[in-house]
């Protein structure tokens, strides 16, 4: 009886507790069910949104691969059919036989989702929604009790794995364990391939960068931190460096402080900036700058080290974005010349002072470097400053059109101009690769591949700590409105989501260090890719000498890049990029191990033609057959060709290493315009004369001739009239989303170069997609190639709307706006499809 009463009372107590907890919030308490958790893995080039359907992703192991001394990353996404009220994520050591990579080298982060509205500038890959960006280590998430996952919702986790330099090459395995809701357990396998070469950052970190941390109103701009001290600045600097990015400034309260940082960090960075102080927006404090540069010159002489070799100027107050920043265009442009010339004068003054004081003689090697310091100008080429510009940093979009890239290459060759890309709002907008949160991670990664191919040696990003609403400045507080939540609210939301920051503050989670973003993680991987390329280039340079030939890694990287690139636009060839990177790594291993130097690989019709060198005693096979080599220096040279196979691979075996390269698919000639009937392939817009079949042009026979005319009926027509020559894609036997490449030849039969846009158009909906811009030189043939259409960032439905592809020029009028004509010839329309 007593026992029964006690039980009754206990039950009453429990019931009352239940009432008291339910009554006030009107909700039932959370069920105690564990639920079933499942996972999928994604490549580290993919960004998986909160509500994205992940059923097609792999359920296998998290695949990670890296060189020794490199960070690499992987990710997995979990879902649970019950709400997860708490979880923990742990990882095991990774093992490969007896070799171990300690779990201490692995960081597991929760991907935090940010809401991104449709951007005015960047429309996003998949429309508005919640996209992951901030990477918060799980221990901080748990401490803040944010270890919650809503029912049937994606939650991504990101793994940063550092492979020690002394690690043994091989494939390591391990597991990630997710414990959730008390008893639930999910195990995810990891497979980590360690390549048999070392990535030495002091040697290979050649890609320069300027990721700005603003010095705003007298202090470092850290809205999400409780302090803006120099120590905090260096926390951010170190985090950037961990992600292969360099900020412009070192703390510079005094010249001694600044020089101290330069000395400490010199071997770790790819570039650093010269400090300056603006007295006003138009007046530089030359004495201030002299003190700092003089102190560094003294340090060079004292230490016998050329510190200026990694330095550059970015005196943004005076010349930043002078060419497009409309409110400041008039006065900033006026300051370009005096600013650069002022720096030149200061350099000469420093040198003279140094000689006069007896610190160094006039032939001091550091003087040459000092005189060679470049100004990073955030604009394209400007003929007005042809005598001054040495380092141009135009927006991403400007460096993705063929015409701009060709101009840049020409300026590099003729004037030695260096090029960096520049990311900022409005200059990296869709469809170009960019930094927005709702862009795919592969965008950032692609940038580095394109940068290598196009000889772009660095990048700038305008602000990495702007945790604010850039659209709303509070003048009375001289501040921008802080974000409502630093992790889930995007700056520039609805314009250019997440623009202005790539790191996240640590203070809200009690961390001294800031946190990285997915975007920055992708950048790190991209710079690592770039380092692979420069390492291969260096190896191939040495091997070319050994084989008594010339060359480097450019041709081979170009071949790899052909499989993943698409001019001008973001592209989504995730597996293609990962495969290209694997091949790059294997090529490095084979170069070091067997002296393999892949000189040239290209497709020619239905053949793959190759030329490579290897050690004389190395066993070699191409697609299973042993080729005959000829003696070249101390090795052997192999040349030949093979048919393109169904799986499009070229298998090169050297010793016990294998390189499986993917080549372009075969194609078919749509027409070589050999008769009148072939003209039906052409579709002309705004061209009065139609087209003709012509027997020969120069040394070519059988072409189509098109004559385009300008028009000037009225002012509106003058501005909007754009003649086009298009090919009718509806007559081809493959849909646009299956097109791998479209190639054709064009001859400009005039005395002037003419700029053209390569575009797709839908005759039914009027939709237009501008693919590229290029110049047809007067009196020359040019082969136009539209590569990898199937991987541009347009979905199949959109691609398949297009009915025509071709070229379009501006209105053809002379200097007096009188209409004129342009004659073009077309030949050899060739299409490859997958």
């Amino acid at each position, binding site marked *: 009886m007593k026992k029964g009463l006690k039980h009754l*009372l*206990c039950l009453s107590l429990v019931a009352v507790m239940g009432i008291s907890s339910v*009554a006030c919030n009107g909700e039932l308490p959370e069920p105690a069910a564990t639920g079933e958790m499942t996972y999928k893995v994604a490549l580290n080039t993919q960004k998986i949104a909160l509500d994205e359907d992940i059923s097609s992703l792999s359920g296998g192991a998290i695949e990670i691969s890296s060189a020794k001394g490199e960070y690499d990353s992987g990710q997995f996404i979990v879902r649970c059919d019950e709400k997860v009220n708490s979880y923990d994520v742990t990882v095991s050591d990774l093992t490969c036989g007896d070799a171990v990579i300690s779990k201490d080298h692995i960081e597991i982060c929760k991907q935090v989702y940010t809401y991104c509205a449709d951007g005015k500038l960047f429309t996003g890959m998949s429309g508005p929604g919640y996209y992951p960006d901030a990477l918060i280590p799980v221990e901080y998430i748990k401490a803040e009790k944010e270890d919650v996952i809503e029912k049937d919702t994606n939650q991504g986790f990101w793994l940063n794995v550092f492979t020690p330099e002394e690690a043994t090459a091989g494939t390591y395995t391990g597991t990630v364990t997710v414990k959730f809701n008390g008893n639930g357990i999910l195990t995810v396998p990891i497979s980590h391939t360690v390549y048999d070469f070392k990535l030495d950052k002091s040697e290979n970190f050649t890609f320069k960068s300027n990721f700005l941390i603003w010095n705003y109103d*007298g202090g470092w701009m850290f809205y999400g931190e*409780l302090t803006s001290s120099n120590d905090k600045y260096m926390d951010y600097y170190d985090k950037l460096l961990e992600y292969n990015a360099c900020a412009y400034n070192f703390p510079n309260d005094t010249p001694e402080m600044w020089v101290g940082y330069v000395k400490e960090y010199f071997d770790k960075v790819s570039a650093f900036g010269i400090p300056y102080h603006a007295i006003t927006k138009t007046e530089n404090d030359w004495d201030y700058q002299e003190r700092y540069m003089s102190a560094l010159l003294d340090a060079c002489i004292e230490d016998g080290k050329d510190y200026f070799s990694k330095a550059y100027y970015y005196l943004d107050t005076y010349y930043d974005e002078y060419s497009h920043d409309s409110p400041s265009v008039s006065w900033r442009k006026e300051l370009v010349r005096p600013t650069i010339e002022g720096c030149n004068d200061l350099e000469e003054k420093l040198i003279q002072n140094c000689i006069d004081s007896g610190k160094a003689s006039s032939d001091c090697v550091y003087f040459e470097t000092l005189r060679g310091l470049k100004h990073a100008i955030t604009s394209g080429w400007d003929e007005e400053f042809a005598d001054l510009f040495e380092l141009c940093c135009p927006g991403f979009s400007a460096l993705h059109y063929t015409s701009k890239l060709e101009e840049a290459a020409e300026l590099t060759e003729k004037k030695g101009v260096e090029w960096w890309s520049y990311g900022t709002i409005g200059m990296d907008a869709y469809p170009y690769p960019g930094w927005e949160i709702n862009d795919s991670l592969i965008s950032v990664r692609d940038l580095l591949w394109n940068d290598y191919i196009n000889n772009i040696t660095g990048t700038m990003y305008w602000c990495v700590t702007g945790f604010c609403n850039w659209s709303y400045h509070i003048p009375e507080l001289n*501040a921008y409105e*802080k974000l409502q939540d630093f992790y889930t609210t995007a700056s520039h939301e609805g314009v250019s989501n997440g623009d202005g920051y790539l790191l996240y*503050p640590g*203070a809200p989670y009690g961390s001294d260090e800031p946190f990285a973003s997915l975007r920055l993680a992708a950048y790190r991987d991209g710079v690592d890719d770039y380092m692979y390329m420069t390492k291969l280039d260096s190896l191939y340079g040495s091997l070319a000498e050994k084989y008594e030939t010339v060359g480097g890694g450019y041709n081979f990287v170009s071949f790899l890049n052909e499989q993943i690139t698409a001019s001008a636009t973001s592209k989504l060839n995730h597996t293609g990029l990962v495969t290209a990177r694997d091949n790059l790594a294997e090529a490095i291993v084979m170069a070091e191990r067997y002296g393999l130097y892949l000189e040239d690989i290209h497709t020619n019709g239905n053949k793959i033609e190759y030329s490579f060198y290897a050690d004389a005693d190395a066993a070699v096979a191409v697609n299973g057959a042993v080729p005959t080599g000829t003696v070249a220096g101390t090795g052997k040279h192999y040349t030949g060709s093979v048919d393109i196979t169904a799986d499009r691979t070229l298998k090169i075996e050297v010793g016990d290493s294998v390189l499986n390269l993917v080549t372009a698919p075969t194609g078919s000639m749509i027409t070589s315009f050999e008769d009148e009937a072939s003209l039906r392939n052409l579709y002309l817009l705004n061209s009065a004369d139609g087209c003709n079949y012509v027997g020969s042009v120069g040394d070519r026979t059988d072409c189509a001739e098109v004559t385009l005319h300008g028009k000037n009926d009225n002012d509106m027509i003058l501005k909007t009239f754009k003649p086009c020559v298009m090919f009718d894609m509806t007559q081809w036997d493959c849909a646009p989303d299956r097109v791998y490449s479209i190639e054709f030849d064009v001859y400009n039969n005039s005395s002037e170069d003419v700029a053209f846009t390569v575009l797709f158009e839908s005759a039914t909906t009027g939709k237009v997609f501008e693919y590229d811009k290029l110049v047809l030189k007067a009196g020359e043939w040019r082969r136009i190639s539209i590569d990898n259409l199937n991987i541009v960032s347009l979905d199949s439905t959109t691609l398949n709307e297009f009915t025509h592809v071709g070229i379009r020029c501006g209105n053809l009028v002379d200097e007096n706006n009188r209409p004129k004509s342009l004659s073009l010839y077309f030949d050899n329309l060739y299409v490859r499809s997958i």
Partner: protein
Amino acid sequence: MKKSIMVLLAVILCFGALTACTNGGISREEEKTSEVLMGFESVRELLTVYTENVEELALCEDKAIVSQGEKAMSVIGKKTAEGELAANMSVSFVPGNAYLKKMDYTDVGYFSVDVYNPNECDYEVAVVNGGVSTDLFVLKPGKNFLQFYNDRETELYQRNGGVSYLSLVFRGQVGKQSRFVVDNFQCYYTDTEPSTYSFDKNKAVWHTFEHRAETSLLSYQVAGSITPFEKPQFTINRDSRYILSGTGSLKVTFRAESDGSIRCSAFRTADNMMADLNAYLGEDRYYLSSDIYNDYDYPIECSLVVFSNYANENYQKKFTIPAKSWSNAEDSRIYLDEMLESFTGEGLDCMSIAYYFYGINGSGCVYVDSIGVKK
């Protein structure tokens, strides 16, 4: 014994469960007359604070200093070299975030904030309410309680849609790194409706200075930026010795630096808030009238400047005001016909009147009454 404890617990919990649900029926007025707007209890709350010239914010857990809750906000200014004047340091609270959700302050009569001054000397602090009003306080060493009026009825308040931000600006001192602890930012509710004030520029005398809200229509007149400590202070005077008509006049207090110099000794009326002076042009000689009292114990010079909307033109009149006296009535008159004569174009299109004072050395004040048109 155990049984009785169980029963007691059950009863207590039942009671608790029932009473906890009744809060929804209590009106705010019955429930509270004040509310803590910010308690500075977490790092995340501190991160909503805007700062200028602040080296570091931190949570203070010293029970001897914390005046509300468990924690307060420690504010440390930028380091200052010996002999160098520290920059003024400010912390600002902007409504509209997770920790300061309240946006409508029309039901608030006063605010208060506790500031602990750990320094051994007095410090000046300005409380700036969204550009609507500025209140100056002296922080004594130790705890200070600052209470300030919510200028709900001012034109600026209405124009800005309420409190847009609230700043504490700490005046820097030579060679000292500013350090303070801020806690318990509160508002005090009032049931009284804000008194209405409507500016009527069509009256002959458009500034009678009967209402506090009129002060928000005046602005300081100085080239370059100026701190709250250097601005003239505008208040409504009720001391009849300094009133010529009605029950109020404008008191303009000038604040001097330690060397007696005054950064700003001028102010002006709001732009385009003057009567249409063309209606007063004619045979009768109307004039712009301003009665000005010099409270300094020496004569000062006053320059009245009327700005025209046309071509940056202005009309000036200079005169001297004797010590401790009202200005001579004739001296301070600006006749409309004379002004019309000096301006280009047809008619008068005046923007505002500025009052410049010269020969002032040291803090002090002037009074102004009845700005309008008379004959």
